[in-house]
């Protein structure tokens, strides 16, 4: 037994601070994603190369963060959160405008999207705050935690970027929930949220977002305008059937009736070409990754790690659910990519960075216990 536990005889994965099952799930997902992208991009090799490069960078980021001890994250949580919030304010003040939204900060040598940093900084900071108090949380701590979630959410919503602001908000809220937010408050929120949504509709939401919601409720009302995306997406999914039309044989995707087919709507391509069987496989893969993430969280040895790991995992689920929900007509189109499958840079790096943190939490606990 001692021999097996001897640090000198650790396997390669342990040496690299990687969690085997989680890594296997992520690799399988990314490989699946590459195949779908090859078809969805119309066999576009340049796009494949760019995506692969990002995958390498993203896995690099994961590997790097896996080596960092959880305490380090805890130490840097608040400074990162404050810096991120400051940058969000700067984006609104002098940000770079792209596609009608102000999301980028031009640092001179590179363009940078502070909202991506906040995707990790918010749960880290909230987890730090929550873990510094006994659990379950008291009401006033909840309020402060809530405000920590709300500030960046509102700032990002102003850019405007509804999808990211929702993701950041839920990432923080998940920490509060896992930290023991009382059921009474959860029930109360469940009642307040509809009212809040209505208030958002009246005072916060931009016209284009309202239009998306309206066409979500009845996409056929505007088949050539804003309803076009969702109608074409449902046609793609529905016409795929149980077995699918076959890889690279989707008519909706290959003939380009499907918009944004390699980014937000890649799930529709997947559904059309690989059918319900493929979808079940993909959902199983996501469920496996989420389950593994929650197991890592539950096995973590301090509250900060538990809360952060749990939040990262559940946020990952929100990505999956919002993306699939929006392309299949369950949710409004809010512009969230399908994690690790959609083509697109920053979000993938951020996601893998999150998994790097999970790896770190998963592999550093024994050392923690020894201290």
């Amino acid at each position, binding site marked *: 037994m001692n021999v097996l536990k001897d640090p000198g005889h650790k396997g390669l994965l342990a040496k690299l601070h990687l969690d085997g099952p989680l890594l296997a799930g992520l690799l399988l997902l990314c490989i699946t994603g590459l195949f779908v992208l090859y078809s969805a991009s119309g066999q576009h090799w340049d796009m494949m190369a760019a995506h692969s490069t990002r995958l390498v960078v993203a896995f690099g980021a994961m590997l790097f963060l896996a080596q960092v001890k959880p305490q380090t994250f805890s130490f840097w949580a*608040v400074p990162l959160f404050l810096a991120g919030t400051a940058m969000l304010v700067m984006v609104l003040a002098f940000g770079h405008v792209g596609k009608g939204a102000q999301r980028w900060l031009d640092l001179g040598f590179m363009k940078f999207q502070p909202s991506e940093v906040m995707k990790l900084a918010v749960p880290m900071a909230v987890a730090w705050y929550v873990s*510094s*108090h*006994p*659990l*379950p949380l008291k009401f006033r701590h909840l309020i402060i935690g809530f405000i920590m979630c709300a500030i960046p959410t509102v700032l990002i919503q102003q850019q405007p970027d509804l999808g990211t602001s929702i993701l950041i908000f839920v990432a923080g809220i*998940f920490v509060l*929930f*896992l930290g*023991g937010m009382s059921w009474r408050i959860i029930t109360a929120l469940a009642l307040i949220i509809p009212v809040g949504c209505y208030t958002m509709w009246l005072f916060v939401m931009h016209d284009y977002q309202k239009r998306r919601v309206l066409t979500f409720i009845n996409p056929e009302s505007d088949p050539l305008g804003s309803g076009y995306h969702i109608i*074409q997406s*449902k*046609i*793609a*999914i*529905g*016409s*795929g*059937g*149980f077995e699918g039309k076959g890889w690279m044989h989707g*008519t*909706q995707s290959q*003939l*380009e*009736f499907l918009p944004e087919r390699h980014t937000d709507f890649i799930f529709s391509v997947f*559904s059309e070409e690989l*059918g*319900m069987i493929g*979808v*079940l496989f993909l*959902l199983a893969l*996501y*469920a496996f990754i*989420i*389950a593994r993430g*929650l197991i890592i*969280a*539950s096995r973590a040895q301090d*509250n900060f790690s*538990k*809360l952060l790991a*749990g939040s990262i995992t*559940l946020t990952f*689920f929100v990505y999956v*659910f919002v993306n*699939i*929900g929006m392309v*299949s*007509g*369950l949710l409004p189109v809010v512009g969230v990519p399908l994690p690790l499958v959609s083509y697109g840079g920053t979000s993938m790096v951020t996601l893998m960075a999150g998994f790097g943190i999970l790896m770190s939490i998963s592999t550093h606990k024994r050392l923690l216990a020894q201290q």
Partner: protein
Amino acid sequence: MIKRRPSIQDPAAESQMFNQRALFGFAVVMICFLVVVFNQYKLQVVMHDHYVTRADGNRIKLIPQPPNRGLIYDRNGILLAENRPIHSVELIPEQVKNIPEMLAELAKLIEITPERQQEFLKEVKYHRRFVSIAVKEHLTEQEVAIIAVNQHRLPGVTLEARLTRHYPYGELFTHAIGYIGKINAKELDKLEEEGVTANYAASRDIGKIGLERYYESQLHGQVGFQQVEVNNRGRVIRILDSKPATSGDDLILSIDMHLQQKAKELLGENRGAIVAMDPRDGAVIAFYSNPSYDPNLFVHGISGKNYRELLESPDRPLVNRVTQGVYPPASTVKPHMAILGLENGTVTEQSRIADPGFYKLPNYSRPYRDHVKWGHGWVDVYTAITKSCDTYFYDLAVKLGIDRISDYMKKFGFGSRTGIDVMEESAGLMPSKEWKRARHKQNWFPGDTVSLGIGQSYWSTTPMQLALSTAILLNDGLKPTPHMGRYFRNQSKDTSLIAPLERVIEVKNPNNWRISKEAMRQTLMVQGGTGFNAFKGISYSAGGKTGTAQVINMAANQKYDANAIREVHRDNAMFIGYAPAENPTISLTVTVENVGGGGANAAPIARKMMDYYFTRQSAAGAQP
């Protein structure tokens, strides 16, 4: 930073609480995934067929393919209306690296005006990159050849050919065959009314006048379809299915191109019309109206200037004189009047009248002059026709009365359309008491009846009506339907267009037909007949009747002097005739406007037509 307070924490309880929460979270995750699975099931299994239909609706498009229009041949198999390729040089923007450079290259090879080049560069901006755009249309054969040999140097440039109608004989058949032109809004409405718009999905042209219009539905053919897969921008990815267009049926005419040419040659510069018909079945052998115009001008859209010229020409070339020209029939209807007189018992084969050179109505002093000032003396029905005695027919007409004349002459087809296969047809006019009251708010005067006897007064006919009435007379009261279209031919079978004869006149005494025809034979074959000089020395037998129609009414005492009056007021020369006299195979109706007497001006034309016809026939018979 706030200091940690680990002392009051309970790690075990906290851990348990966290695990519960995590488990709860995972339960929510699984519920959400179940919702997704349920929704996928709904879309991909339950509503699968619905979405397959819609996906196909997206990607499958029908591209109509125009049918080739049926060709038109004369009776000898000579092509009168054909489909010719017109060539254009086209360019596909996405296949050309530098469009202005390529355009300059093309302009070196063939002439492209700078204006056209500018226009083309603009067009490029408004078209999809994969759509071929014409750089120049209507290429000459030489230009086609130049582009063809340089093709390898011009990637993205293609030569395209499209079929359009061409009438190789130009103005010779314009009034008979007509022409096609671009479908206009009115015609589109009509197609919609008939419910055949789909059949015209790929067609640009439609028959505008003549046979092209009359037989439009058969000549046009059936549209074909190509079922193609397209992408979201409409680019054709591949062809899934195709149903080729069915060409229109070819139309074979009874017209003889050579005789038609002869008719044109004989009319020369004169305005007029010539109809040659086989009286046995109404088959039209020549159908020519002079002057004519080039139908090819209309196929590609005539210029405003050219059209105005045609419209404003005093010779009125746009009028189809064969079926739209209305002329007083004059003496050409005397044989018809004779039949009525004999049938009615008003005259007999032997009865005679004395002709002093004029006719007076009882109790009226106004004389109605004969064209022979001193009169014809004693005149029977034969002399009345051969010498074209006016007095005889003045007398006959008055004795018969307007009602009888009007009713009987309508049986010969006067006053109604003949049913010839062109739509541009006038009904002419067979006057009656009722008509005059309705039209002129006047009673019918006895004087009106007098001149009706010699085919004047209000009586007006088209050359085609005269030809038909002659055929009815020659067939002893059986009416053929005049037609130029003999039959339609497609791959599988021929469809005849010849209608059976119809009895329109019953006679008490069939001998009356013989009397009238014998008189017409004598008119041409016996010295003293008004057509004798014109037909002197023919190698066949023939019959006929001359006519000289007054264009303006002369005062009773006024003498006609051709030189003294304006050309347009001179008499029209008329002639109807047929050959061989015993068993006619061809009849001719000749109308020449404002040239004078029919015996001198119309009969010689008919004779030359017949000579030509029989010469060609015997030549064909000698060398079968």
